[in-house]
C-alpha cells in the first residue's frame, strides 16, 4: 500500500467521549496512535488534531502531548493541528512543548493556529477573548524567538519555524498568513466559490505564498441508505457542539432552533458523503478553486476504530487515484 497522497492529511482527533459515543478516555489516545500508524502506512502526509477546553466529554486540551504519544509510534507521518487555539496558551510554555515534539519526532510538526471562539475558554486562564488577535501575534513572535534560541533553550532545527497553518477565513487571518508567509487553513464549511476568492486574496497579498489548505468532512459510502445514516450522525455531531457553544446573533444555538438549523444545513451541505467518484469530483473542485492541500476529516466520536480503518482503505484505494495530480494522486 504505497499510494502517495503527498498533500493530503487525515483528521480529526479530539479524544471525545460523548453522550452519543462513550469511550474509555485512555483508549481514545491509544486509538489515535493506532490510527497514526495506519495513516502513515497508507501513505498520507499527516494526521490532524483539534483542541477545546473544559467540556464535559474530555475533549483534548493539550495537543502537543497527545501528538508526542502518537509520534513515538511512527517515523514518517507529520502531525498537524486544526486548530490549536494559540491565543489561549502561554506562548513560551507552548513554544517549548512544540520544540520538544519537533526534536522527538525528527521535525514532523506542522502547527495550526486558530483564534478560538468560546469566551469561557479564555476566561478559564484569565484572558480576554476580545484581545485574541493581539495574543495571537505575541504567541507567533514567541514561537519564533524560542526557535532561534533567544529564550535560553537551544535553537530548534536550523532556527526556521515549522509551517504554521493560520486558521480562519476572516480578512485579518488571511492578511496575517500572507504577511508572515505562513500557509492558510480554511474551514470545512467553505464553498468552492468562497475558497476561490480567499485563495486569490491570499496569493495576491503574500510575497511568498505558502499552501492554501482546506478541511473537508469526507466519507466514502456508495450505498445510499448507509450514506444517509452517516450524514444524520454527522449532523447530530455538529448539533451538539453548535447548540451548546455557537453564538449566533448574540445568543447560543439551542436557544434559537431556527437559526441553528440554518447554520447546520450549511455545514452538512459541505460534507462529501457518497460514492468514490462523487467524493473525488468534489475534492477536485476544491483543488480547481485554489486549494493545494487538503485535511480530510473521516474521524468523529461516532466512528469506531474498525469503521475508520475501513473508511481510510476506501479513501486510499478508490478516491486518491482519482484526485488531481497536484495532491499526489495519479490522474
Amino acid at each position, binding site marked *: 500500500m504505497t499510494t502517495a497522497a503527498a498533500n493530503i492529511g487525515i483528521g480529526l482527533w479530539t*479524544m471525545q467521549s460523548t453522550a452519543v459515543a462513550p469511550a474509555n*478516555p*485512555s483508549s481514545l*489516545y491509544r486509538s489515535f*496512535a493506532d490510527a497514526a500508524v495506519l495513516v502513515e502506512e497508507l501513505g498520507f502526509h499527516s494526521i490532524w488534531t483539534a483542541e477545546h*477546553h*473544559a*467540556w*464535559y*466529554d*474530555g*475533549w*483534548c*486540551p*493539550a495537543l*502537543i*502531548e*497527545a501528538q*508526542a*504519544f*502518537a*509520534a*513515538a*509510534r511512527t517515523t514518517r507521518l507529520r502531525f498537524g493541528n486544526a486548530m490549536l487555539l494559540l491565543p489561549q*496558551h*502561554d506562548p*513560551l*510554555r507552548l513554544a*517549548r*512543548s512544540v*520544540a*520538544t*515534539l519537533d*526534536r*522527538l*519526532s*525528527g521535525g514532523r510538526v506542522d502547527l495550526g493556529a486558530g483564534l478560538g471562539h*468560546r*469566551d*469561557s475558554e*479564555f*476566561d*478559564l*486562564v*484569565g*484572558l*480576554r*477573548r*476580545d484581545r485574541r488577535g493581539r495574543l495571537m501575534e505575541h504567541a507567533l513572535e514567541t514561537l519564533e524567538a524560542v526557535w532561534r534560541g533567544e529564550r535560553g*533553550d*537551544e535553537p530548534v532545527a536550523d532556527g526556521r519555524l515549522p509551517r504554521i497553518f493560520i486558521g480562519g477565513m476572516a480578512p485579518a487571518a488571511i492578511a496575517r498568513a500572507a504577511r508572515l508567509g505562513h500557509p492558510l487553513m480554511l474551514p470545512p464549511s467553505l464553498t468552492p466559490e468562497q475558497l476561490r476568492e480567499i485563495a486569490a486574496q491570499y496569493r495576491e497579498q503574500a510575497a511568498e505564498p505558502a499552501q492554501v489548505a482546506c478541511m473537508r468532512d469526507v466519507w466514502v459510502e456508495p450505498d445510499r441508505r448507509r450514506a444517509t445514516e452517516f450524514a444524520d450522525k454527522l449532523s447530530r455531531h455538529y448539533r451538539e457542539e453548535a447548540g*451548546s*457553544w455557537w*453564538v449566533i446573533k448574540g445568543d*447560543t444555538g439551542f436557544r434559537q432552533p431556527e437559526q441553528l438549523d440554518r447554520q447546520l444545513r450549511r455545514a452538512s451541505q459541505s460534507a462529501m458523503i457518497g460514492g468514490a467518484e462523487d467524493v473525488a469530483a468534489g475534492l477536485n473542485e476544491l483543488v480547481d478553486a485554489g486549494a493545494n492541500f487538503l485535511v480530510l476529516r473521516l474521524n468523529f466520536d461516532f466512528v469506531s476504530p474498525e469503521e475508520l480503518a475501513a473508511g481510510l482503505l476506501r479513501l486510499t484505494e478508490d478516491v486518491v487515484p482519482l484526485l488531481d495530480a497536484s495532491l499526489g494522486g495519479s490522474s
Partner: protein
Amino acid sequence: MRFLLDPGPLTTLAELTEAGEAAHSAGLDGVFLSASPALPAPLVSAAALAARVPDLRIAVALELGDTHPYHVAEEAAVVDVASGGRLILVVAAARDAEDVYGEALDLLLTAFTPRPFRFEGATWKVPANLPENVHNVERKVRLTPAPTQPRLELWGAGAGREHALRRGLGYLADSDADLSELGDAWRAAESSLGAPALTAARARHAAVGDPERLVATLRAGREAFGQSWAVVRAPASGTRALGARVRPRVQLESLPEGLERFWDETVTNSTRRTTG
C-alpha cells in the same frame, strides 16, 4: 523502596527509549524526566516514552508559578490519561515564584478533582469571570479530561517542602539535604497529618558505581526520614546494577545472614530478561 531512573539530560527519542527500556528490564519502577536544553518540555517527553515502554511510572519534574497552573493541570491530565495513569508530577517553585507556590499547588489539587470547581486565590482565579468575556461563561468549571489516577501522584520538591508535607503530598528531597532536619520535618508532618507522609530522595550518579555506598545511603534515608522512593541518576548502562545489586538490599529492614554473600557470589550484572 521504589526506584526511579534519572537518565540525565537527553536529546533524542532513541535515548529516551533506551533509558525507559533499561529501567524496565532492570525491574525499576519508573523513570524521572526533567527539562533539558534540547527537550525543554518533559511532559511531552513523558507522553512519547509512555507510548514506547509499558508499565513504567513516569515522573516529570516541573516548575510551578511561572505560568498559569491551569495549563500545567491540563497537560498533566492528558499525559496521565494517555499513559494509563502512570504520571508522577514533581513540582518545585519557579524562580521568584516561591510566594505563589502554595497557591499553585492548591489550584492543581482542586483542578484534579473530577467535579466543577471555583478557585479564588490571591494570584489566580478560575474561572476569572472577566467582564469582557460574556458568552457561555461559567461560574464553576471542570478540568477535562480528569486524570486517570483517582488522585494524581503529586510531589513537592526544592524549597516547597513544608507546603507539600502540610498537604499530605510526597516530597522529593535533594541528595545533599540534611538528614536530621528532613527527619524532623517528616515526623512533624506525620504527627500533624495523623497519617504516614511520603518522602523520596535523590541519590547522585556517583553513587551508582559503588552499589554498597548507595545501599548505605538509602538505608540511612529510610531510617532518618522514612525514604520510600529513590531517584537515581545513572546512564542506561549502569541501570542493571541498580536493579540487581541495590534494589533487593533495601526492601527489607534486615536480610538473613549469608544472603548478601550468596548474592555477591551468584548475581551478575548480565541481563536476565528484556521488555517485550
